[in-house]
């Protein structure tokens, strides 16, 4: 009895190592800091992880099909920069945001054509669009900073649900609700639609998938396009929360995004992983960053610790994989 319970627990833990790590860190951070568990702080973490979390939706799917997208921060910048530029010049909000999202999505179209049409490796192709995409947006913006003062972005940035004043609990930020809603949609997409099943089929064995009639190229291209589209949404969120578009806004976000995907347990080799677990990965990252600031960890150590965290995730994931194969 006890043995079987223990085995079952071990199986569950190795299958949900990301969730176990999240809970362990949550308890540790809560014990070691007086302010970490305050509702306002938890809500701050939700908001702080939003950009990486939304980028992580598209990135997870791309990694599941065995690819990688290094250009997400440029697609993000396209949408943030162009919509801010158009809004500043008096375009109406729906048009400006529509153009921004479309421009971001075009980055994915180009990625898809380069990778699946021309046959360039995903790393090289998306490295190219990473550099080129930001460059193009900067030309259009004339390299200047743009202040975002539109009521729509203001609304995204400041809106919260009603809080409970008696218990000193503030409202949940709208940005956090948007993130959770997007993850719900993505999780349903992956479980309930043919597209989701095709993604896993391609990631598991691309040749077998093609032989059984999966339109591999189209699905892969669609996956790169949705990745840039979700980066476009992340661009709107970063524009709202920072309020100013600087030439380097969001640069380097691809590193945190891939880290969140890996921390969530998705294999970089493709085929294995769950999109909703990337949310857990993002939470682990931003909880840790938040705790390090609250606990006054020197900034140099924070940088080192973030890198070590990602390395640890990869090693733990690898070990769990090996022990499962052994048993």
């Amino acid at each position, binding site marked *: 009895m006890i043995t079987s319970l223990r085995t079952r627990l071990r199986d569950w833990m190795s299958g949900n190592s990301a969730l176990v790590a999240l809970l362990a860190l949550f308890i540790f951070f809560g014990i070691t800091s007086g*302010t970490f568990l*305050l509702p*306002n*702080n938890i809500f*701050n973490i939700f*908001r*702080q992880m939003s*950009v990486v979390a939304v980028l992580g939706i598209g990135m997870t799917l791309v990694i599941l099909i065995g690819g990688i997208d290094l250009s997400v921060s440029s697609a993000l910048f396209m949408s943030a920069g162009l919509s801010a530029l158009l809004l500043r010049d008096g375009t109406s909000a729906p048009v400006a945001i529509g153009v921004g999202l479309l421009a971001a999505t075009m980055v994915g179209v180009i990625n898809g054509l380069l990778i699946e049409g021309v046959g360039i490796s995903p790393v090289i192709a998306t490295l190219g669009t990473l550099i080129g995409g930001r460059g193009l947006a900067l*030309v259009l913006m*004339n*390299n*200047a*900073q*743009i*202040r975002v003062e539109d009521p729509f972005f203001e609304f995204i*940035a*400041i809106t919260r649900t009603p809080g409970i004043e008696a218990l000193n609990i503030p409202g949940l930020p709208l940005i956090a609700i948007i993130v959770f809603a997007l993850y719900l949609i993505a999780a349903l997409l992956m479980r309930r639609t043919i597209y989701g099943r095709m993604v896993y089929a391609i990631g598991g064995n691309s040749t077998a998938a093609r032989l059984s009639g999966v339109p591999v190229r189209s699905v892969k291209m669609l996956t790169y396009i949705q990745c840039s589209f979700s980066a476009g949404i992340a661009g709107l969120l*970063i524009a709202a*929360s*920072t*309020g*100013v578009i*600087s030439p*380097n*806004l*969001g*640069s*380097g*976000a691809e590193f945190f995004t891939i880290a969140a995907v890996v921390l969530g347990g998705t294999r970089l080799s493709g085929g294995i992983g769950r999109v909703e677990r990337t949310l857990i990965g993002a939470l682990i990252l*931003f909880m840790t*960053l*938040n705790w390090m*600031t*609250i606990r*006054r960890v020197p*900034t*140099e150590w*924070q*940088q080192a610790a973030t890198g070590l965290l990602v390395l640890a995730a990869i090693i733990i994931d690898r070990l769990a994989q090996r022990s499962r194969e052994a048993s």
Partner: protein
Amino acid sequence: MNRKMSFFITFVALAMLLTLSIGAVGAQDAPLRIGLVQLGTDNPFWIAQVAGGEEAARRNGFELIVTSGEGDVTRQVEAFEDLVNQGVDAISINPLDAQAFGPAMEAAAAANIPVVCLFSMMDGCVTVLGFEERVNGGLVAQYAVQLLTEKYGEPRGNVAILLGALGQDINTNRAGGFTDVLANYPNITVVAAESTGNWEADRAVALTENWLTAYPDLDLIYGLSDSLTVPASDVLKRAGREDIMLVSYDGTEVGLAGVADGSLRSTVALLPQYNGFWNVYAAYLVASDVQFPATYYMPGAMVTTENLAGFQQLSVDLAENIGIFPFELPVGNIVADYGARYGSE
């Protein structure tokens, strides 16, 4: 204020050189030709630098040849080599990548063409010009001390610093100059100094939020760039913590707008026309066989709520009346003079 004094002496020396150089020009038959190699041409900062350089040429009667690498180091090396082949009398260059100029610098040396370098040292540079980032950080600290003294009646309080990318000189100097000065005030504590990664606005927002949790009694935040402090000012506004003062750096349009609406207390403007004037003027002096210091770092203009109106007039004059702008004076004196004449509105 030893450093301030040494600046002043440098300026007096340079002013004397100016007088000497008029004689040097008189001795020439044809006007000297000075080449300027820019990073690119599409950035407002670079355009303003060239405007200052052209004014230096107009005032001193030499010919200025403006070229650029358009953001590409190979093209920049080609532009540099073209100038060497044309046999110009001196070259002023802001190298995209100092490592790439080895052979080009040797060609210039072989042709006996002196090279003045901007921002980065290369083997063979006669002089290096740049901004006095560390001194500017100190100016920000002095203003922060003034703000805290106004708040408490004595210099005390809790300060946090939004850093840029760790390891970059610009980060080390802007922050180091600030903390050096604050070290003289035992009751002012720097409670936190954290990196925003690669000058990431999103990290600046997160850090500011986290600091509000960790240090509820924070008095002032210094951000090393307007691209960090402007987002931080939005966080303070949303949290209803506008009692926390923000001092900034860069003097960009959004930063100056922040000083104007009070969300930032100050920023440091780098005056690209002034820098551009001296970049080219230094090359001209060197070509005229006038001794020029091995390094020449220019301070920035401290723009505060009090002198904003004066600074705005100064910016207008730089754009519209550049022909009579007193480039030969130290920046601090010019800014103080404008502040006194135009005051705050």
